[in-house]
């Protein structure tokens, strides 16, 4: 199978990797780049555990090929906390006990972060639909939705 030399930016760092044509971005992140914070729950784009932000848009890394990201900017969970400070969403997930086993948490945090960029003041229903592609089997979503709403409020307050 053909190999591709790809140059990309991951969490602000210039990264170069070689991948096979059929290799997914998820496989590259977890395997070649050893960024295992992005999780593999299904491999078919149904669970959202591998959500990362690609050129500003949240995507399922299992549905994108490594060869497609040449020149792109990728943000993963490993880049979410900055300078030793948790992102408000990360802090609110801890404050609200919005995780149990935690396997879906990185994907949900990246999805919520990308969503709040487009809608900083969502309703409960909007948050539920924004997260409808991210499965969580532990929490029943209640505390996740509360954490996202609370983080959004805090982020709005710190903007003004």
């Amino acid at each position, binding site marked *: *199978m053909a190999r591709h030399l790809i140059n990309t930016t991951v969490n602000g760092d210039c990264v170069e990797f070689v991948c*096979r044509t059929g290799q997914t971005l998820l496989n590259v992140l*977890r395997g070649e780049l*050893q*960024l*295992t*914070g*992005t*999780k*593999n*729950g*299904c*491999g*078919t784009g*149904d*669970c959202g*555990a591998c959500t990362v932000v690609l050129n500003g848009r949240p995507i399922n890394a299992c549905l994108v090929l490594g060869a497609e990201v040449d020149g792109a900017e990728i943000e*993963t*969970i*490993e880049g*979410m*906390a900055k300078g030793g400070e*948790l992102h408000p969403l*990360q802090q609110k*997930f*801890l404050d*609200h*006990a919005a*995780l*149990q*086993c*935690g*396997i*879906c*948490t*990185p994907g949900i*945090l990246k999805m919520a972060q990308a969503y709040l960029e487009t809608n900083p003041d969502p309703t*409960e*229903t909007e*948050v*539920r*639909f924004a*997260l*409808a*592609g*991210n*499965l*969580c*089997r*532990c*929490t*029943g*979503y*209640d*505390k*996740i*939705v*509360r954490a996202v709403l609370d983080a959004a409020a805090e982020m709005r307050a710190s903007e003004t």
Partner: protein
Amino acid sequence: MNEIKTQRGGSNYKWVGKNTPRPDGVDKVTGRARYGDDMIVPGMLHGKILRSPHAHANIVSIDTSQAEALDGVKAVVTSADIPDHPMAQPPYPIIVNDLHDISRNVMAREKVLYDGHAVAAVAAISEEIARDAIKLIKVEYKVLQHILDPREAAQPDAVVLHEDLFTYGVEPKPTKPSNIFRVVNGERGDLDAGFTEADLVIEREFSSQPVHQGYIEPMACIATTSEDGAVELWTSTQGHFVQRTLLSKLLNMEMAKIRVTASEIGGGFGGKTTVYAEPLAIRLSQKTCRPVRMTMTRSEVFRATGPTVGSKTRIKVGMKKDGTITAGEAEIWYQAGAFKGSPTPRAVDTFFSPYTVANCKATAYDVCVNRPKVAAYRAPGATMACYPMESVVNELAKELGLDPVEVRLKNAVKEGDESLMGTKYGRIGLVEVLEAVKEHPHYKAPLGDNQGRGFAVGYWMHGGGLSSAAVNLMDDGTLGVATGSPDIGGSRSSMRAMAAEELGVDVELLKPIIADTGSLGYSFMTAGSRTTYATGMAVVNATREVIDKLRALAAKKWDIPVEDVRWDAGEAIATDNHKDIKPLSLKELAGMATSMGGPVAGHSEINASGQGAAFCAQLVDVEIDPDTGFTSPKRHTVFQDAGRAISPDYVEGQMQGGAVQGIGWALNEEYIYDDEARLQNTGFLDYRMPVASDVPMIDTVIIEVPNPNHPYGVRGVGEPPLVSAPAAVANAVENAIGQTMSDLPLSPPKILAALHAQAAGDD
């Protein structure tokens, strides 16, 4: 809105009952936490499993030569590499772990028994090569007739899965093999007299489908074998000590030669309580002396790891006009899957145990069918028995014009009563739970068009059992707390809170970890809602040993009898007859320990009992779309006696998570097979679990009737919310459409058909 109703009075606890920071929290929100598939070991090989495309077939031959010849393939294993074991003999425990069956489930031997049954496995230098290699393995099958339905499989002329399986628990002893492994009975009183006494008797049949635990992390493990035969296993499991025992017996190895480390676990719910790929990974690594990683795909998880049982039930219940349940009789057929051992005793215990029914009988049949071997799922065996009973009790109450909660109160079990399987209840909180329902605003809130309200109560007898803990004091006064119970839902917080409460120091001084099997005494699985109860008790014991040693240290320093030293709020304090002695803090004592006799640590190994029963009631409002038959849950309140909530946020989380799993079970989730018994919905798109937009906020009311057998009153919380949720949701649907429904899941096509039939009947 969440609330806590406590019977304990105001407590002076500083950490117990408070929401303390979660020790593993930061690692989990930053992606740092390492789950099964997140470990990378130098020199690692990748394992893949070849699985059967047939539901029932004899294996005529397996030819692995082409796969072995492929460049990059390092080893191939088949059933010839897994030792055989004789069948287990009676008496059988509640959960049957027969090595004869497990060896055949991890790798098919004479036959394949379900679509997805493992047939061979390879280890190669890359995943791609491993995937290519399994396609080169040639298996010749002789396809046999398959059977999926438990009642059909229980018929005398049904095709038999195991020629050596004879039904246990019936007289006379059968001479012909059968798919029925055992028949479990529970009985009390006089059924005929009980039904005669009743003013109304309702008899109905129900069914439920197998549903998967649906943990988001697929099974993953890495086995490493060195040239001296020592095995290290890293795996996502609910019980690494249990795995060590099973693996050593299965593979005929000394236990000390297998060290198992539990990774962070991405959900289990009972599904990660046995071995699947682990023995294959070990065999492949033994053949190569290299680390072998095996990670299942989601499709493999659905096809080859245990869902819970599907069921058929016939139930008959009699009630007097005043609401007294006079008699109950139930028969239930459980799909064990390909191998015997579904949780039938739990079914028998579930039907009537919340109620003081004087005359009742329950019978459960454990039936093998061509489906994956079932595994536990959050209160295994209880949910599918709770659903028929609660449905009929609701129907009886409705027909007799009685309030469904009052009917439960009239029959509710209390301290001193017995479950059907003969367990005498200690201090239990069913009445308190029901009173809380009656007082809650949800109970009388008005309903809108096409809406219905459902109610159900669930019973579950929790697990106790074997747990070990160690508490290690460090020179600076901080402490390590080690247990052998994998933390799935935040139990490290609770362990830490209880140890901090005992010591009277800040929780942040304690670091809880999950120790590997080489570092601590045996601990049973994180299952049966037992961890905060049993392992928590071991942590309290171990902490008290540390405190006793610190008191002795202070006594030595002060040269007074140890009886004259007490421990309070993080300090050793001399009794009043030593007024001139200043207390010594934990930190001061820690600093002097090593020079005054040696390190200070405490440990505890226990077999906990007295955990008792717990009850959970749920109120559910749903709205039905009459055009599509789609059900939207609108309001959901969970009421549960937690004994004491050590970490209330995480207790609420258990209640909310269980409730939403129950919504999925009631409305959507099911295993769908084609005519060849091949599973059709092997991904999350077609196996549709609830997503955030499907459900409302889940309100909780934690009732605290402390369990007198635990130092902090813990009762266990994880399982009861799933016992009553499907029954409550189904009842809400019935009330919304004004019809009785009897086959879970109540998916849109079924509801639409019922609405159409109703409309046709009205015309």
